[in-house]
């Protein structure tokens, strides 16, 4: 195919299926963002507990977290699938093949990542800044809060890593969402489908959109972090 031919077909694709594309991009963003927000609400406090306190079993929990950080998406998908399948323990909710269950699968993926990276960032800052806060007059609780604030860049990096992971994974959303057109199709599952059907140009366009969005989201977050002094 010539370059001109390629652009023409991409143009045709965009004009004929632009609405569908917008829906796909919107769903990708909303599923992954929701999953990351929930993952951060769970993972940052958990990471703070792991990073700040020396309690029995802490080492074991850290190791468990690090193991779960590399949980294969398809396995997370399988677990959630079994949980929410008709015959599964949560089957009565009847949410399999809906965006809700895709969010749940991604929460399972990103929470350990956010927890582990937040715990590491907080533990590193704890060593350096805890006693400084305490000698200046902070109670244990106030000092813990300062440490978390000081670790904000590392925590944010963890959240971004989680977002990247969720936004780019295909195994979990494919299994539990089913890649249903207009309903649960997201960028990654579309790429799989278009590639299988031989529509390589579209697959590449979708891939570029995926990359560009990832880039924009992380730039915005890094910028917000830089510009805030305090």
């Amino acid at each position, binding site marked *: 195919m010539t370059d001109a031919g390629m652009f023409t077909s991409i143009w045709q694709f965009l004009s004929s299926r632009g609405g569908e594309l917008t829906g796909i991009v919107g769903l990708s963003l909303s599923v992954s963002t929701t999953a990351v927000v929930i993952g951060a609400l769970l993972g940052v406090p958990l990471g703070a507990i792991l990073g700040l306190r020396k309690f029995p079993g802490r080492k074991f929990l850290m190791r468990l977290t690090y193991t779960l950080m590399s949980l294969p998406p398809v396995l997370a998908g399988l677990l959630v699938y079994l949980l929410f399948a008709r015959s599964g323990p949560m089957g009565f909710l009847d949410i399999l093949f809906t965006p809700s269950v895709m969010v749940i699968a991604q929460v399972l993926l990103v929470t350990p990542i956010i927890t582990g990276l937040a715990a590491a960032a907080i533990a590193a800052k704890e060593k350096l800044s805890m*006693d*400084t*806060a305490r*000698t*200046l*007059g902070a*109670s*244990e609780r106030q000092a813990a809060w300062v440490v978390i604030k000081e670790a904000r860049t590392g925590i944010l990096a963890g959240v971004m890593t989680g977002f990247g992971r969720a936004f780019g994974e295909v195994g979990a959303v494919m299994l539990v969402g089913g890649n249903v057109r207009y309903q649960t199709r997201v960028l990654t599952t579309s790429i799989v489908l278009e590639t299988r059907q031989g529509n390589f140009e579209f697959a590449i366009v979708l891939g570029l959109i995926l990359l560009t969005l990832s880039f924009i989201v992380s730039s915005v977050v890094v910028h917000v972090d830089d510009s805030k*002094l305090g």
Partner: protein
Amino acid sequence: MHKTLFELEDVIKKYDKVPVLHVKNLKLEENEIYAIMGPNGSGKSTLLKLLNLLDEPSHGKIIFQGVDTGKAGDSVRLRLRRQMCMVFQHTYMFNTSVYNNVSYGLRLRGIKGPELQSRVKEALSFVGMSDFGKRNALKLSGGETQRVALARAVAIRPRILLLDEPTANLDPDSVALIERLVQRIHETIHTTVLIVTHNLFQAKRLADEAIFLYEGNLIEKSPVPQIFTEPQSEVTRRFVSGTMVY
């Protein structure tokens, strides 16, 4: 006659069951400048942390202003700790402005509004850094960092200032400046000062009394010219004469 601030009785600090500090008896009086000397690893930083109630001894009693700190609850310990401030060997600046670093201790004490502003201003001008308030605290030179660390302490007007090798990595000009500031803090707010130092001349210049630690033991506590001229023990003599190999 000065008032006793600290009284230590048979204090032992262990890390992982290994004793690193043993102080059989120590009394520290108000309004003095003490130098704490000793080779690396002799327990100087450990002693300061115990005095600042940042850590608890494994054994023994630390009595501060008549209160047995080991028996005190968290809120009493916090109240006592808020009368002191420590400047660490490696200063940590909070990732914010110089102003916010200096105001932190005051905000913790519930000070706000115009009083907060004037206290921060006063502390910054005390260390000669009035123009630095808006600067990013992470982008200061070594000497500036130590001055802000002192300003953070001065702002809260501590009764006791604990300094852990505050001039260890500074150029001679900065060292002289920090020493002058320590003297002035002592004179103007009558702060009792404990300064850990490797520099024997610094101890001579600043301190009324010197404490010598060696391998975790308190070997000697003597008034300042004497500890150098007539050390009471053989190890002290070797240390102050510079013939100790460590």
